[in-house]
């Protein structure tokens, strides 16, 4: 067992090293001189030289890389070219919005997908099942921003006459005003969920169908257990391992992957931060964000693997 853990850790560390090295290299690839992005076009040569010294832009790649790594070790992800504030600050400001969006999305998606998955596994090829297959294939093909735009169109514009109407863009902090906050986040969460739900439901359906053929389901039935109890108490848990894994992975992925939705709905999250930084050529922020996202994703991945082992008692035995 310890050997497996060691190997896993080494792998993770190597992966992160590769990512961070690629990011360091990023600066070299930028056309033009980053100093001008920071100082503006009117900078004097002295100012440019000063910036180069401050940011160690003249150093070789390996030494810059080393410096970057040690900085990260201290929690310093760099300084924004544009705002001059630490990148970490920008990230912590942007994180709540994204975190809330992603968490609510996964929760809502599971809440909807699980009953659908269970029912369509219980009655495969029923009318609902076939209808659902069509609908979910449709949603899988739709890019997220198309879904979002359709939602915006329907809710925000057609319902304008009604007293209830969802504000399309905007944001209020959860701590400042919970009501407003939930109002604003509803449409984005729905838009993102419509992409997750088909994946989850399909996975659960496949696993459940396999489980329902198992002998222990027949045996439970012979005990006189009710259908509902069999579905949710006997069959769901053994079938949900892949689902939980996928939910965990998607959660990690969505942190950086909700860019379009954030931009569309003007949510001040990590995605918006990145887009704005790219547009303003603030490479430092882009570097910092990507590095952080990679770390988070790798950590979440590992957590998911560990949790999987915990959930499935059979796997525990095999590993022992």
């Amino acid at each position, binding site marked *: 067992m310890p050997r497996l853990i060691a190997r896993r850790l080494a*792998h993770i560390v*190597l*992966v*992160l090293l*590769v*990512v961070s090295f*690629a*990011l360091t290299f*990023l*600066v070299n690839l*930028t*056309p033009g001189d980053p100093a001008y992005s920071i100082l503006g076009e009117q900078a004097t040569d002295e100012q440019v030289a000063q910036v180069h010294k401050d940011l160690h832009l003249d150093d070789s790649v390996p030494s810059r890389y080393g410096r970057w790594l040690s900085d990260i070790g201290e929690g310093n992800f760099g300084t924004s070219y544009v705002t001059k504030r630490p990148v970490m600050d920008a990230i912590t400001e942007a994180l709540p919005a994204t975190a809330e969006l992603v968490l609510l999305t996964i929760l809502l998606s599971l809440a909807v997908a699980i009953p659908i998955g269970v029912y369509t596994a*219980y009655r495969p*090829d029923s009318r609902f099942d*076939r209808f659902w297959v*069509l609908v979910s*294939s*449709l949603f899988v*093909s*739709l*890019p997220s*921003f*198309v879904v979002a*735009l359709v939602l*915006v*169109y329907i809710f925000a*514009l057609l319902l304008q006459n009604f007293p209830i109407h969802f504000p399309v863009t905007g944001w209020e902090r959860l701590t400042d005003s919970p009501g407003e906050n939930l109002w604003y986040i509803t449409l984005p969460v729905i838009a993102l969920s419509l992409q997750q739900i088909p994946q989850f439901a*399909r996975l659960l*359906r*496949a696993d459940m169908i396999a489980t*329902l053929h198992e*002998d222990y*389901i*027949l045996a439970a*039935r012979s005990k006189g257990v009710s*259908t509902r109890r*069999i*579905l949710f108490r006997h069959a769901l848990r053994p079938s949900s391992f892949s689902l939980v894994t996928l939910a965990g992975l998607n959660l990690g*992925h*969505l942190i*950086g*992957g909700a*860019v*379009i939705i954030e*931009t569309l709905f003007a949510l001040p999250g990590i*995605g918006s931060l*990145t*887009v704005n930084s*790219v*547009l303003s*050529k603030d*490479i430092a922020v*882009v*570097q910092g*964000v*990507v590095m952080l*996202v*990679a770390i988070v*994703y*790798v950590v979440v991945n590992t957590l998911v693997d560990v949790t999987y082992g915990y959930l499935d008692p059979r796997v525990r035995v095999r590993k022992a």
Partner: protein
Amino acid sequence: MSTTFDASVTGVIAPEETDGTSFPTTSPAPDGAVTPVAPLVRHRQIALWLSLGWIGIVVFFVVFAGLLPIPRYDAIIEGLKPRAAPHLGFPELLGTDTLGRSVASRLIYGARQSLTIGVASTALAMLAGLTIGSLAGYFRGPIDAAVSVLLDAILSIPGLLLLLAIAAVGQRNIPTIVVGLAILGVPTFARLARATTLSLVDREHVMAAKAMGARHHRIILRELLPDVVLRILSYAFFFLAAIIVVEASLSFLRLGIPPPQPSWGAMINDGRPDLQTHPYLVFIPAACIVFTVAAFTVIGDWLRRRFDAVSFGAAG
């Protein structure tokens, strides 16, 4: 339990009450044997033909765009207001955009861009992925471990984010975008290639070649690759579908190929302010994206069912 019955005997959750139907003494007539599969298969075939049809239309327009009697994509149409709605009379079937340019023309040239970029990056990703994956699967050992680290590094960054990073530093031109998109696809192609290679390496014809002293590259090229490519073809279409979305997303964020070159994603973004009053400005290019993505997905699905039950596991 009994092993005589085949897979059509489904689970036992709900025994239905029998109503004393009379017993068939012979096999039921061919149409009487109701297998739930039948209507679904028909649906799939219709979907496949529709998809091929749509792709055919798109390809036709893309290839012959220069020869068609349509205005240039950056030309302002005389005689028509901007944001004109689509109508069936000539000349502008699909209306005009916010600046008064021909929507139809921009759609076609946008298609050309999307498809070119899509196919190019898919091809590049396949090439790189197959190479890396096959080598990893064939040689195993340290090469495999190194490749695994590399692939995981790529996978640890969400696609769009990775592209944003590339867009931040690179030029906004076709080669950069193609390479960036291709990087997104390398991990999965490589994984598939590796898995297939691993499963094929022990097959007879490979061992025979080894026994005859064939050199490594010969084995890889002649014995393994054909099988690998066939199995991966279905994923190529799924990837193509996804790439079209990513490219559109990039253009939507104004980080793709700069104007005046048209792109479906950019067209959607342009139409956004007028969503309430002129929804077609947004939804016509959106529909194109959706149809194209769906079409490639269906084709990829068909290929998967035909050639590749192995890599993707049991049909869901």
